[in-house]
């Protein structure tokens, strides 16, 4: 059997045409986009072309897109960039975020907290969605930043960004609104301008682009303190010679996602997966939002009397690749996922939860095959439960 890759929330296969364009870029257009000569200008043209493509997908002006090394750097730049001035002036301030953020937002907020800033982490319901009333209550006169992710990487829960934006618009001291849109960019409607989003982080490798490149949308007029100083690239916000081939890859990936949306296919894959599991495996539960309600490319599913890690290993042995929780946290202590705990997954299922995530490269046949294998693995794992 051909391996079945169902870990697309961790990263995706790179599109063949993108690989080819990136190679051509390294081969032929290797000039430094900051150089004044012809080679430099050619490279700059590629970078600016990619900036326009990326901006188009976001529905914003090209000069609001700042290229970074990926989602993590974009999140760091957004949050530290807002607080940079306050830190240097020794002032206080308040952040509102959620209990289910990715570590690249969560850890930065933790750090600011140890530096003396106040942090409120909004709780989420069983579907993984925040409560707008709780958000309103949390806002204070000194709230400088609200950081809420769009699609959660472990459960696929989707926050009501338009409503959050509306709440913030009417807040007395309108805080800066940051969105980690790494899991949603290119896949679901995301219009920062319309929703009152000031900062948004995106990444290329979740949409069949290369690793090591992403971007931060920065609303026009918003002042950020840069976190890396140097030659003043990217409007002074992110110094460092542009990753031209990577940026080309990001632009192409964004363009392709917009041209052929995958949400319909991934929703069909997800529904089929759940349907087949329902038919063949007992004692399971879907963690997080309802099937239709959550992001179509992410499914979190828990099995009683199984260890998620063992199950993922067994599946890997059979050529089916899935994750337990987020790939970024798997090298650290495997205490149960903070996201699954926040949405209140019952203890019996917590240990036995895996994340299955889809892309446009998956097929319905692959889903059928992998659920067959999943059934075999769950049954086998259940034979060897700790007694």
């Amino acid at each position, binding site marked *: 059997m051909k391996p079945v890759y169902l870990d697309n929330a961790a990263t995706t296969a790179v599109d063949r045409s993108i690989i080819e364009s990136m190679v051509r870029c390294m081969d032929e257009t290797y000039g430094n986009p900051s150089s004044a000569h012809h080679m430099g200008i050619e490279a700059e043209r590629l970078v600016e072309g990619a900036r326009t493509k990326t901006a188009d997908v976001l529905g914003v002006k090209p000069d609001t897109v700042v290229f970074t090394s990926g989602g993590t750097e974009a999140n760091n730049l957004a949050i530290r960039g807002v607080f940079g001035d306050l830190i240097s002036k020794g002032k206080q301030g308040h952040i509102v975020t959620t209990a289910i953020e990715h570590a690249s937002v969560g850890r930065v907020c933790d750090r600011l907290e140890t530096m003396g800033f106040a942090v409120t982490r909004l709780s989420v319901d069983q579907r993984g969605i925040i409560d707008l009333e709780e958000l309103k209550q949390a806002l204070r006169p000194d709230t400088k930043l609200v950081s809420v992710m769009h699609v959660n990487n472990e459960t696929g829960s989707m926050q009501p960004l338009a409503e959050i934006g509306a709440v913030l618009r009417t807040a007395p001291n309108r805080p800066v609104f940051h969105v980690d849109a790494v899991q949603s960019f290119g896949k679901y409607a995301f219009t920062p301008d319309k929703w009152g989003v000031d900062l948004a982080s995106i990444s290329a490798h979740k949409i069949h682009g290369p690793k090591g490149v992403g971007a931060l949308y920065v609303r026009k007029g918003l002042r950020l303190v840069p976190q890396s100083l140097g030659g003043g690239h990217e409007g002074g916000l992110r110094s460092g010679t542009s990753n031209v081939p990577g940026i080309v890859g990001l632009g192409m990936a964004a363009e392709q996602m917009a041209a052929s949306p995958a949400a319909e296919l991934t929703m069909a894959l997800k529904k089929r997966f759940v349907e087949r599991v329902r038919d063949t495996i007992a004692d399971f539960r879907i963690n997080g939002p309802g099937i239709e309600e959550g992001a179509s490319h992410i499914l979190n599913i828990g099995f009683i009397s199984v*260890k998620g890690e*063992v199950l993922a*290993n067994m599946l890997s042995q059979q050529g089916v690749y899935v994750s337990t929780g987020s790939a970024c946290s798997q090298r650290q202590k495997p205490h149960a996922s903070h996201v699954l705990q926040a949405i209140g997954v019952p203890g019996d299922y917590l240990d036995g939860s895996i994340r299955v995530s889809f892309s446009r490269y998956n097929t319905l046949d692959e889903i059928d095959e992998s659920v067959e294998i999943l059934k075999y693995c769950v049954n086998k794992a259940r*034979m*060897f439960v*700790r*007694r």
Partner: protein
Amino acid sequence: MDTVILLRYGEIHLKGLNRPFFEGCLVDNIKASLNDIGPVTVKNGRGRFFVTCPQERAEEAMGRLSRVFGLISLSPAIVCERDMAAIEKQAVALVGKRLERAGGKTFRMSCRRADKQFPMDSMEMNRHLGGVILDAYPELSVDLSNADIDLHVEVREQVYLYTETIQGAGGMPVGSGGKAMLMLSGGIDSPVAGWMMAKRGLSIEGVHFHSFPYTSERAKEKVYELCRHLTPWCGSIRLHVAPFTEIQESIYQQCPHEELVLIMRRFMMQIAQRTAETNGAGALVTGESVGQVASQTLESLTVTNDVARMPVFRPLIGLDKVEIMDIARRIDTYETSIQPYEDCCTIFTPKHPLTRPNLDRILRSEKKLDIEGLVGRAMEGIEVVEFTR
């Protein structure tokens, strides 16, 4: 310019006619530890070795040598001709460098005339060079009992000057005592046990049991990482990775659950022992410490030890966990050991394991299994990975 490092060795002084053998082992290990440092010479001279290496890599060489078992202490030295003017010049320069780096208010001279042909004796040299240093650095004063700087000058065929002495790893040269097979789980204890036996001169091979999918690929990578941390001390290590899944599943299905761990450990001992026999190792090494867990009570050790036909060394047997952790930190295996991947093996540990097992009962349970077949298949499935220093 080259730096000379003076190496002092200890216990093997005491060896009689076998001393050349031990010294030979030690020289081989010294050379192996410096093999990529580039032109290095090792000279033997009356109870010490003199290693010459390029100056810019001297610090790195010191780091490596401080992990070679058999060496008591090391001093990086300046070498000069047996000419008093040259000695004075180097002594002043050396003290100057030392003051610049670490400061200091007091000093003392420790001269040693190993070659009695030299015109000035040790006491005269102390007085003379002490005066030279005081002239050069009037802010210093002499303190014989508790000096900040102790300037050593040794007169041999050449003259060696040094102010620093760092402790060596002690013990016996690795390989001088034969070879042992270390049971390496990936936890905190077993690498420390291997290190302790290497310290006593044994060369080490490892055996690791891999239970994929119950333990992950990363758990195996972690054991590789531990081997890499051990090689600066133990030299090259061959790791035998034995597949253990079938054995664990069979025990789980056919034996009483409270006996799982004990029967599993007996299998591990058997496989380790056979691997030792086929690879010329004369003993097993485990990280067991009496009373630490249920499988390490006196009764449990009796049950597992029963399969052993060769000596089983348990160097941690009388150590507390905290003491073991201290050594693990010192030898730089701790951070790797506490990575959590081993955990999913706990799927096979019963909630209430036996702490006072009875050997006859265990033997009866074990009879239900095709021991020969299971051990044989595990032996056939062994993969060998080599880690060089």
